């Protein structure tokens, strides 16, 4: 197997363990924003769509790539915006610092 792929799988596994560790500490209060936040992060697949469209050398690849970039960008923007909207509302009692 290609060493580069092996290395990528290595990184992938470490990231999996890290993902579980990070979530284990999150209180249930924040599960909804967390779900929509991670939802935005998997919009990273947008990068793949950009690469496909960048390399497209015929019209139907351009169509597929264009569609993929639109959807990927929508996933990213929508996910982050909606999460920000939710978290903006999380406030402590007035007069206890932190707005």
């Amino acid at each position, binding site marked *: 197997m290609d060493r580069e*792929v092996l290395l990528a799988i290595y990184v992938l596994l470490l990231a*999996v363990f890290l993902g579980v560790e990070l979530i284990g500490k999150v209180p249930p209060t*924040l599960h909804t924003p967390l*779900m929509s936040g991670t939802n935005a992060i998997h919009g990273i697949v947008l990068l793949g769509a950009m690469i*496909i469209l960048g390399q497209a050398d015929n019209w139907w690849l351009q169509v597929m790539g264009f569609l993929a*970039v639109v959807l990927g960008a929508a996933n990213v923007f*929508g996910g982050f915006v909606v999460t920000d909207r939710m978290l903006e*509302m999380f406030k402590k009692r007035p007069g206890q610092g932190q707005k």
Partner: protein
Amino acid sequence: MIDNWRDALVDVAYLVTAVCFILGLRFLGNPTTARKGNQLAALGMAIAVVATLFSSDLEEGGSINWTNIGLILAAIVVGGAISSLMAKRVQMTAMPQMVAIFNGMGGATAALVSVAEFMHKEGIGRGEVTSIVLGAIIGSISLTGSIIAFLKLQEMISGRPITFPSQKMFNAGLGGLIAVLGVLIIWLQDGSTAKLLMWILFIAALALGASIVLPIGGADMPVVIAILNSLTGIAAALTGLVLSNMGMVIAGALVGASGGYLTLLMAKAMNRSVPSIIFGAFGGGPEGAAAGGGSTEERPYRSTSPDDVAISLAYAQNVIVVPGYGLAVAQAQHAVRELADLLEEKGVNVKYAIHPVAGRMPGHMNVLLAEANVPYDQLFDMDDINDEFSNTDVVLVIGANDVTNPAAKTDPTSPIYGMPILNVSDAKQIYVLKRSMKSGFAGIDNDLFYDPKTSMVFGDAKGVVTEMVGAVKQV
């Protein structure tokens, strides 16, 4: 040894992105830093997108195709503008649907990228083909699964399990077909036959995603969305493997793992296993549950008026509010907050007890109450507040049902036996706001309603609470 500075810089940018995501997720774990965490993750994403624009990966045969770069920018603007608008406008109660849509978009992107990559590349390795096949299958399932989940949550199709004869056989057959096609494609590696098979695989996986989610009941959709979210993360990581893009591998794996873990947490809070949720409709779960509830004979209960409740609340020392999905449906969160504020002014100590699965997705209730300006330090998770019910004078249950049913602790024959519940029945006085005596999602009677300490208040939650607010003002 760096022989290509341009791509080395792009890789460094991806590393920065990965750090932003990891720290962002960490900050998301605390209410005071959560917003910053999300913004940090967004910054990381922006860095990755800009870096990719300058990467040599975007070149075709050593030269940049400016038309394609223009198309990329246009597509980002179009997609970003549409979804930002949607995200700004969506009602907080509709949050689960919104997450489902965005998730479906991510799944669609992963599937399209996988299929397109396979169609245009010649002579790719077997490892890459395997990743492509898996990415295409998982992305497609995530896409159609999310669409069905959205339609159910939006109530555009029935939230009830939709089944058709020999559905199990159909799904098994479809799954088998996909597996065979996948193995064939990996074996063939490329060529026109493999490409044709890839299109068939793509379509079969789309069909499977829809037919897996159709028979799952609306109340289980939160878990389904968590699973699909995790799947899209995995699909993104697989696509990253194909393109040797570490940014995608790390981000996808983080989401895949965290989504999977979140799914288990949610299933545990409902005392159900993940397989029983996904395949539940086949095993006759709901019918069995209804039968298990048994007693359908009329039992005596007492009911009272909002005015009486108001008086009892105003003279209490400790009050706990138990909000459920019914509260969100009735849009009563603002009225409830007004009531709580009034009581606090009178020196009553008001807390909210939040069951992990209250609302339509985990933590949904917290968001709905936050929208009504309820400070989050007034909200208590089940484990933190369960011991306090015995010292509580009045508990106000609004639109919650199964999560308060003592049968989960006392009756081993009950279908919800073993589900963690809020110990509402320990309180001195309990008022339950409900539309009628109808049973909850689990389809069983709630013993709490027949408790001598319990009085029912019937009506629309918003109207009833508003009446209470008026009455408390008079006290």
